[in-house]
């Protein structure tokens, strides 16, 4: 049947019965698919899309390494992984935005090439990104058909009326009533998501990739989304669903694949795994379990106190206390708000209610005030937030300590150099000279520089956000030795980490975040991976 490429294959979808009217379940055999795709999960057919041995290299990092992955018609295939595991790279490779360096693609058993977004579109692959690919000041119809506009009567013009007509049809299928002339920036997030899905459907998508779709949604909106997903499933659309909300993974998923450090480390089904298994697959690394530490017998004064802190970033009513001499852990699943707590405490994000106190003094305003009070933040994203990678080791080591080391304002390079040399020696930073550009150093050494720059400020409260991510084993234990030394000398440390063994073995006690709130607190005796996991998950 010859259908205009812009027009969704309405023949196929016409026979679908709206979910809420008849309570259709995916297994209901009364649904008749006229064209394309088979019903659900019959394993006899070749997978709709298969990736074999996909690799993608960027300067300095191997984002994907030999990934093998397949999707079947009508299934919801969950894709799990931490930040930086390679999920978004995989998505972009699948959709043709990135070109894979190695590996092959197969569409229903036949080998194909995906070298550009058009190739992926032709295969029926569409992606709903977390940061939507919508143009704010274009209306719904224009956004849906961007790049595929209907030609108008005169050469060069577009047929707006037709675009609105077709857009209405697709939105109707989703049960989304909205004037298609509305500029997209006026829509709420959930509605924008509907537009994104409509966009994908209008491209005759048979494989829909969704990146953390429920993150910005309310419960009702989430239910609506699930309804739409089940409807699409019934049509034989395959859905690759990226999420780390265990409840969703187990409620919606047919199969689960876990990525870690660019590799596929596990493929299973919801029936065959527990949430704890999945988290372990996501996070488990070669971990050196010999953390040198004496635990804190007599904690000192409170170094950091968060009292009912809320922030527009999403955290609510957070109460946390870190005392001098302690390493307090902050655990929780990806997206639970840990980094947001650090940023609110330090002053990067605004605090909408509640108070932050540093060694008894109220902390307000911008980060420079926090530094004056003796705070230090080693951020999650080293290269973007922790360092100026185009500058030298020596310059980076002086980033924070200038005001403290040179109170009069006069900078003395000799003093700075001495400090730099001392840090390089003390922290064993592997660099030939102080003048070497930081970008050329390894992750572990870069992290040491980030820590070292704070040692110039006389900080006594340190917040570490994923300090050992992307760092080799040797450097990891050095960093932990450093942290241990800091608290022995009387500092207070808040350690945010996804690696449960780290929290269990290093911390005196730990808080666990869940969906923007503090879900619980574990003392030394209660500290175990199982307890951390169970507090961190929605219902476990």
């Amino acid at each position: 049947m010859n259908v205009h490429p812009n027009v969704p294959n309405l023949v196929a979808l016409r026979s679908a019965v709206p979910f809420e009217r008849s309570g259709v379940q995916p297994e209901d055999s009364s649904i008749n698919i006229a064209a394309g795709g088979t019903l659900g999960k019959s394993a006899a057919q070749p997978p709709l899309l298969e990736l074999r041995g996909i690799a993608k290299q960027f300067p300095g990092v191997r984002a994907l390494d030999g990934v093998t992955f397949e999707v079947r018609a009508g299934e919801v295939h969950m894709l799990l992984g931490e930040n930086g595991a390679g999920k978004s790279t995989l998505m972009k490779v699948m959709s043709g935005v990135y070109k894979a360096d190695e590996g092959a693609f197969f569409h229903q058993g036949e080998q194909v090439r995906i070298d550009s977004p058009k190739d992926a579109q032709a295969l029926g692959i569409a992606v709903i990104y977390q940061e939507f690919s919508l143009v704010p000041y274009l209306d719904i119809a224009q956004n849906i058909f961007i790049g595929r506009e209907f030609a108008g009567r005169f050469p060069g013009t577009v047929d707006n009326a037709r675009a609105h007509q077709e857009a209405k049809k697709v939105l109707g299928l989703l049960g989304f009533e909205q004037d298609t002339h509305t500029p997209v920036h006026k829509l709420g997030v959930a509605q924008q998501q509907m537009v994104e899905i409509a966009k994908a459907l209008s491209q005759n998508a048979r494989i829909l990739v969704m990146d953390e779709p429920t993150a910005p949604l309310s419960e009702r909106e989430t239910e609506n989304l699930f309804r739409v997903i089940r409807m699409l499933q019934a049509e034989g659309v395959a859905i690759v669903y990226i999420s780390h909300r265990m409840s969703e993974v187990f409620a919606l998923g047919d199969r689960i694949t876990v990525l870690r450090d660019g590799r596929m480390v596990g493929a299973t089904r919801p029936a065959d795994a527990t949430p704890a298994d999945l988290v372990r697959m996501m996070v488990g690394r070669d971990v050196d379990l010999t953390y040198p530490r004496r635990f804190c017998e007599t904690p000192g004064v409170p170094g950091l106190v968060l009292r009912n802190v809320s922030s527009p970033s999403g955290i609510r009513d957070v109460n946390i206390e870190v005392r001098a001499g302690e390493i307090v852990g902050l655990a929780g699943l990806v997206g639970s708000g840990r980094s947001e707590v650090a940023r609110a405490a330090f002053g990067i994000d605004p605090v909408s209610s509640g108070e932050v106190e540093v060694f008894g003094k109220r902390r307000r305003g911008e980060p420079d005030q926090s530094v004056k009070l003796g705070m230090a933040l080693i951020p999650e994203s080293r290269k973007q937030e922790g360092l100026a990678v185009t500058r030298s080791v020596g310059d980076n080591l002086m980033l924070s300590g200038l005001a403290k080391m040179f109170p009069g304002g006069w900078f003395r390079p000799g003093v700075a150099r001495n400090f730099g040399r001392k840090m390089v020696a003390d922290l064993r930073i592997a660099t030939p000279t102080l003048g070497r550009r930081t970008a050329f150093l390894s992750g572990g050494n870069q992290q040491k520089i980030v820590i070292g720059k704070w040692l110039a400020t006389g900080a006594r409260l340190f917040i570490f956000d994923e300090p050992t991510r992307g760092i080799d084993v040797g450097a990891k234990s050095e960093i932990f030795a450093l942290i241990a030394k800091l608290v022995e000398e009387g500092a207070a440390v808040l350690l945010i980490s996804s690696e449960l063994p780290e929290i269990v073995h290093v911390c005196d006690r730990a808080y666990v975040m869940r969906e923007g709130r503090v879900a619980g607190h574990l003392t030394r005796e209660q500290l175990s991976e199982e307890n951390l996991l169970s507090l961190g998950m929605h219902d476990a």
Partner: protein
Amino acid sequence: MNAVLNSLKPGENASKFASRVAAVLVIGLALSFASDVFFTQANLLNIFRQASLLFLMASGLTLVVLAAGIDLSIGANVALSACLAGSVIKATGSPLEGAVVALACGTAIGVINGVLVALLRMPSFIATYGMMWLINGLTYYYMAGSTIYGFPHGFRQLGSGYLFAIPVPVYLMLLFLGLAALFTSRTIYGQQVYAIGSNPVSARFSGIPIKRRLVLVYALSGLMAGLASLVFLARLNSAEGDIGAPLTLPAIAAVLIGGTSLFGGVGTPFGTLIGALLLTLVLNGLNLLNIDANWQPFVTGAIIIIAVLVDSVSRQRQEARA
């Protein structure tokens, strides 16, 4: 002295730096062959005088560009400050009072720019572009089409005089160079400006007070424009509404040629000095070779584009290596 030497320390930018000095020498050499007049004392001194005047303006601008900003209003700033100072000197006969007025006016404009960019978060090019036109208008209004001329002899030495056979502006240029180099390499504020220009996000995460430093660099740029206006006033021995117009483009060109990157975090005042010299040499050469003066804006414009191109290419190459 150490400060200047330090800011001269090219480090890994040695090749970029050397190539610019080489360019100066090459052009100088070529011109001395092409024209008999080039290598005469009169011409060389003239070149240095011109380059000094240009550098006086460009030095403050360098600081702003280091912080990844731009100040399109410096030309207008110089004009307004000069006109205000000029009329004060004429009225009171006191160059000192004129100087105070010029500095105050320049700094005030700089502070306003800083507030617009840092506190009100306007993009620097549009904020300073709007200010440029605003100040131009104010200057014309104030001058009401008239010209102020005839300043005290002593004052005029500032711009036209000689000291030990060297034009006074050259000494001022060295003074400005020293001050600017002192700021960039011997104050913590200068170090922080480099950090802000290189990566404003990590600068904030490191506890650098970004807003305050931005206002500071714009204020300094304004202050130095105010100082420069006095020298222009002395040199031209007159002030009228539009003396600022032809100044902005060459100042930007000088900064860019000198190796200061528009994207921030890279560059030195000494580089801008070399840039000012280079540009002046080229324009002087055009003059000597009897090329139509109308070519000057073309050449300046072309040089700006080439400089940005080179900057962008070298930046991309550096990022690829990282």
